């Protein structure tokens, strides 16, 4: 039974693909309504199958550790491209704890978001197109997480990027949406280039794309040699892993490649919810986790991961405090949470063949995966709730809202759980996962990172409750018409409260089962009790501060405070001018400083030479063309005369 399920595990992918093909290519004519129903049906089937596979995986692979020591399973692996006799790219399905966890998360969230979208996208002219693209996204994201090798993963990686591009620019009539989709595309593609180079470097040296081969200590040992690039010593292992990580860097929108994610909120809110918070942006974290044994072999890479994660966590949280657009707040919050996951991965340590005797502490890995899991649900819900609000009041600005508690009670209570979860309040899911992350940082001795995590936790609680109070409490700051909750939408939101509240119970499962691949080592999960206490205190402090400033929908205190620190506020509000810096670099330095001289060279020197040749030929042609007077008969006469001459000469 289980074998049969695994053999046909490609069906998880096939249902969304079927839905995409059916809706977009229309072999049968579907009305938009039917298209939506069809897409939901396909997602539902995919979810059921995914859950069945997960259950089977739990029973066979986890339940029988003696049979599956690596705790992973290759369902099938077909040769796809033969690059050389020794290098073959496969297409396969690979199940291990993190991919099964991701299947569960992605299929459940896709299903719920699809249901939600029926309400949200109602009356949109692109209704059917939306569902087709969502199905394409589900297909590619599921394909990404179950890839058996890095090249297949890259293929789906790009597919995911493509569907994200299409969905950000879904309302292509809006110039801002088009610009945002272009920006997302360019930035992630920029990062993916390095990813591809990394793949090429790694596969060149190891003659393999397969994750199991790449993650083996032998690979790390093979790659670990230093060569000199000029006078700079470069370790190949570090270079390759950082190149690969750059892909995740861009996809997970870490500083300084984070600029595309806030703009990506131009897309429809369900899209932001599933792609730009719950699943796709996690791909970077997932990639790091997937390649973790290789990454862990290089100290430098892990340090980079850790630093980038920690910095982005704090940086994004600070920006989120000042934002007024409801979706941007959540976008920066997403950045911040992704930072958490990454630094958690960065603080994990493991033994590899080349660093014998190094410290072993894989807790960070488990914690990161756990946070991926919990974050997906509560962040998805936050976005769905934000979407419901936007749908109801037709505005993105939280300054225009307020007092929605009475009008949207179901949304209010559901969102409250999500806000408490992200704020790290006991006993909601976010508390447990953040606690695990902080514990991991503390255990591995990265006290600064741990402190950053704690501070970010406080900031998170503050900005999320700022959003919450300004939206739901106090009096309405502008007039709303006809605010109503849509049952399609509230169903999904309320369904998501279940994992948000209860995911905390899974902590021990994650810590003991979702561990670094190939490492039979249960992390040390003994708590110093002061750590969760401190984290909770930070969260409660953030909430209290938010209540003081914004409780009952007041904004005067906050306004006074803002005026006092106006210059700093301005800097933060403008996101530290990162976008402007980018513009400056691209326009002023690259366009004017580098491209313009090259252009001049091309126009005047290269083209000039070509023009000279052309001119010469033209003058020659002018001389010759006098013979061509365009009269057919002259041509034929001359030809005939020539033929006659040949006749006589040839005798």
């Amino acid at each position, binding site marked *: 039974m289980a074998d049969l399920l695994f053999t046909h595990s490609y069906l998880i992918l096939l249902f969304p693909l079927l839905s995409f093909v059916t809706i977009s290519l229309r072999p049968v004519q579907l009305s938009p309504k039917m298209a939506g129903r069809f897409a939901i049906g396909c997602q539902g089937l995919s979810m059921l199958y995914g859950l069945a596979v997960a259950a089977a995986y739990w029973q066979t692979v986890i339940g029988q550790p003696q049979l599956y020591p690596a705790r992973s399973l290759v369902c099938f692996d077909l040769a796809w491209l033969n690059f050389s006799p020794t290098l073959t790219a496969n297409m396969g399905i690979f199940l291990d704890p993190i991919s099964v966890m991701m299947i569960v998360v992605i299929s459940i969230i896709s299903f719920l978001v699809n249901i939600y979208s029926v309400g949200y996208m109602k009356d949109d002219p692109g209704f059917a197109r939306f569902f087709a693209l969502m199905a394409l996204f589900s297909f590619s994201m599921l394909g990404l997480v179950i890839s058996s090798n890095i090249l297949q993963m890259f293929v789906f990686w790009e597919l995911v990027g493509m569907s994200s591009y299409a969905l950000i620019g879904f309302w292509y009539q809006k110039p801002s949406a088009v610009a945002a989709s272009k920006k997302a595309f360019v930035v992630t593609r920029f990062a993916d280039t390095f990813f591809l180079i990394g793949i090429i470097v790694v596969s060149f040296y190891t003659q393999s794309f397969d994750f199991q081969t790449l993650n083996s200590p032998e690979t790390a040992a093979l790659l670990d040699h230093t060569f000199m690039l000029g006078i700079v010593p470069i370790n190949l292992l570090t270079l390759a892993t950082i190149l690969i990580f750059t892909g995740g860097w861009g996809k997970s929108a870490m500083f300084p490649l984070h600029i595309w994610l806030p703009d990506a909120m131009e897309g429809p809110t369900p899209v932001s919810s599933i792609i730009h918070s719950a699943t796709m942006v996690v791909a970077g974290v997932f990639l790091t986790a997937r390649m973790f044994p290789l990454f862990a072999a290089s100290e430098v890479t892990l340090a980079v991961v850790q630093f980038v994660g920690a910095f982005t966590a704090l940086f994004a949280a600070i920006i989120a405090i000042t934002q007024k657009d409801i979706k941007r707040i959540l976008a920066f919050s997403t950045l911040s949470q992704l930072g958490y996951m990454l630094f958690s991965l960065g603080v994990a340590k493991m033994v590899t063949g080349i660093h014998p005797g190094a410290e072993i502490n894989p807790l960070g890995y488990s914690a990161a995966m756990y946070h991926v899991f919990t974050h997906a649900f509560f962040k998805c819900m936050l976005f769905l709730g934000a979407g419901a609000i936007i749908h109801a009041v037709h505005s993105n600005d939280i300054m225009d809202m307020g007092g929605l508690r009475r009008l949207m009670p179901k949304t209010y209570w559901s969102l409250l759980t999500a806000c408490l979860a992200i704020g790290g309040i006991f006993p909601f899911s976010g508390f447990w996962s953040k606690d695990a992350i902080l514990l991991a940082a503390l255990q591995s001795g990265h006290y600064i990172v741990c402190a950053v995590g704690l501070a970010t936790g406080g900031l998170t609680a503050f900005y999320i409750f700022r959003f919450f109070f300004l939206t739901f409490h106090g009096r309405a700051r502008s007039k709303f018409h006809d605010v109503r909750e849509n049952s399609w939408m509230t169903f999904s939101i309320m369904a998501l409260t279940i994992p948000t509240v209860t995911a905390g119970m899974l902590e021990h499962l994650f810590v003991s089962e979702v561990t670094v691949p190939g490492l039979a080592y249960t992390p040390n999960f003994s708590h110093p009790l002061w750590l969760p206490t401190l984290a909770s205190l930070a969260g409660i402090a953030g909430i209290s501060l938010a209540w003081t400033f914004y409780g009952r929908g007041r904004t005067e205190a906050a306004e006074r405070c803002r005026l006092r620190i106006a210059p700093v506020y301005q800097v933060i509000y403008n996101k530290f001018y990162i976008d402007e810096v980018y513009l400056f670099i691209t326009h002023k330095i690259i366009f004017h400083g580098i491209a313009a001289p090259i252009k001049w060279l091309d126009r005047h020197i290269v083209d000039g030479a070509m023009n000279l040749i052309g001119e010469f030929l033209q003058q020659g042609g002018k001389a010759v063309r006098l013979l061509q007077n365009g009269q057919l*008969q002259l041509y034929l*006469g001359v030809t*005939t*005369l020539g*033929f*006659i001459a040949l*006749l*006589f000469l040839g*005798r």
Partner: protein
Amino acid sequence: MMSDLLFYGLVTTLVLLSLLAVSLPNLLHGAIALIGSFFATAALYIMLQLEFVALSQIMLYIGGIIIFMLIIILLTSGLGQENRYMVKGRRRAAGAGVSALLLIGLLLTISQPSETLQKATLRAAPVTMDDIGFRLMATNKNGFIIPFEIISILLLVALVGAVVIARRDNGQEQES
């Protein structure tokens, strides 16, 4: 004897009609003369026992090509307006001279003693329609299947090309 007489009669007709076809000032009369010359040619083919070629000549040339030509002439000449565009004077003489030179040159060339021409008096058996059909479709080294297919593709391409060229571009051309 009879057949020689017939042959010379046909040849005379053919040459005369061809001359008329190229020199009659009115194009339509030229085309009619051409029809006549094609009929004479078909008769010659029958004398050469190439029945199918003769029938194709009638069907393709007279039934297709000449009708095309007539349609072109009718479409491009107004009513009662004659197509009198022949070159005049010196040019005409030059054309006649060139073609006469060509004829003399060619005749001189074939007047050389040649095995092929002298000994080629053996008469073949009549070529039937079946022979031609089987040869056209044969795939062995004597077969003509490849030229046949190429010709069919050429026909298709020519038709498509003709449609594309003749289609009215509304933007560019002024209609009177």
